[in-house]
């Protein structure tokens, strides 16, 4: 049985879709069988980020409504053969997502894939709650600024109350993915520091993704950043996050910096 991950944040524009694609591709590059599911019905973007927008025939809503088989809707990536995409519908209303329908689709995907990554829409409405409902693991994507942190806190509250795991009295495994982090701006006080965010949210840190032009460039050519340029700083950060997700104990660094994150702090203090 595969594991179901929800990538969520509450706030929009913090990097949920980018992170879903990058993490999904990175997991698939390590040899695991991965499907990334777009839950943003009506405002789908994942197909663009993954460069599959011209190959969408059927979507999640078609499968839920019984108009297409799951195998017909799944799109296999052209670069990594163990990576699949289940796109969202752009034309349908999100009320077409039913709880039973989603449960059935997730159940079927779990038995075929090692990882099912659910890319949640922004907000706390139906689409977002259904995306998190069947998850085993939650990745909370947060930018180092106050509104994103508060929205993430709200989402963590929902993860602990509205998911199947929570309702069964189990604890949802939650990880923080800090995106668009700029160490220089954090040092100047323009951004929250890593420790501030961790203190407020108090969930374990999965990775720090640096603010980088590479992410935008990758999006525009329709490629997850971990596939577009494997040596770029954000790609390295996502690869590290995936290794931590699989249980490895790695020191927290911001790739692309000359020194490790903590080394940098101590280095400055010593100077």
């Amino acid at each position: 049985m595969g594991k179901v991950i929800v990538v969520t944040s509450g706030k929009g524009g913090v990097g949920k879709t980018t992170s879903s694609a990058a993490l999904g591709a990175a997991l698939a590059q390590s040899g695991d069988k991965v499907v990334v599911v777009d839950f943003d019905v009506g405002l789908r973007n994942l197909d663009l980020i993954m460069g599959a927008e011209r190959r969408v025939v059927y979507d999640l809503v078609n499968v839920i409504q019984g108009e297409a088989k799951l195998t017909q809707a799944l799109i296999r990536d052209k670069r990594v053969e163990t990576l699949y995409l289940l796109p969202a519908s752009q034309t349908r209303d999100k009320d077409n997502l039913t709880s039973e329908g989603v449960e059935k689709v997730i159940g079927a995907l779990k038995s075929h894939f090692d990882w099912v990554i659910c890319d949640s829409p922004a907000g706390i409405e139906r689409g977002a709650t259904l995306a998190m409902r069947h998850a085993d693991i939650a990745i909370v994507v947060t930018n180092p600024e106050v509104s994103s942190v508060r929205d993430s806190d709200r989402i963590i509250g929902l993860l602990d109350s509205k998911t199947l795991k929570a309702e069964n009295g189990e604890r949802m495994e939650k990880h923080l993915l800090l995106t668009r982090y700029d160490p220089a701006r954090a040092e100047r006080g323009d951004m929250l520091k890593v420790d501030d965010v961790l203190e407020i949210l108090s969930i374990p840190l999965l990775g720090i993704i640096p603010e980088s032009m590479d992410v935008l460039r990758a999006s525009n050519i329709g490629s997850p950043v971990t596939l577009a340029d494997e040596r770029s700083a954000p790609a390295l950060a996502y690869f590290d996050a995936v290794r931590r997700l699989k249980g490895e104990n790695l020191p927290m660094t911001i790739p692309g910096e000359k020194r490790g994150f903590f080394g940098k702090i101590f280095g400055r203090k010593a100077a």
Partner: protein
Amino acid sequence: MTAVLTKPRPIRLKGRSYLALTLTPELPFEDWLVRLDDLAGRSAGFFLRRPVVLDVEGLEIDRAQLRDLVGKLGARNVRIMGIEGARPSMLGNDLPPAMSGGKTTGDIEEPAAEPAREAPVTETVAEAPAAPLPTRTAPASLVVTQPVRSGQSIFAEGDVTIVGSVASGAEVIAGGSIHIYGTLRGRAMAGTLGNAEARIFCRKLEAELVGIDGYYKTAEDLEPGLRGKPVQFWLEGETFTAGSLA
């Protein structure tokens, strides 16, 4: 000349909890209403003057269906004071407000069948026996061992102890005192059931609002020197007082 109030008297805000009857309708509503009519038929006036909350959690209905149901209940003299478990999109100004955070107090017994009608005709029709209400025990206190997240609301009639932080946008409401072993970033209201002796304690103060027994202070009214410090709040007469715990 306009009089300028230099020290405006703040409005007193108090919380109070009441026992309400909760109805949990089931689909299809037609069948459920028949069963409700059957219940009401056995005891006229069971729902009369009783606060009733409608719990629609998990029901796949839209706004029109909900409004229709509330209307049909109204026609049966069942007045709905609030709706629990509805999506915000289902509620509007024409429907009762959303309720949340209710606590179960046990089932209220259905009224037994009315005594046989063969009773002497001279007897006036007695009012239906009110269902026995659960008796209230000592106010329950509450210990929360996880952080209180933004959007969450914690309530207990007794003391509330939080082992963790209270996030911005979260609130803790207690009939007694509030103890927070973490940072208070949201709201804390103690003594809301009319207890002026209640206090609020926190390890680190970043609060949006604190209140005791209806007296309150917002972040702007708090002494700036107390920010980030361990602090307690209490009432001295009608004066809201804050002091460092360090």
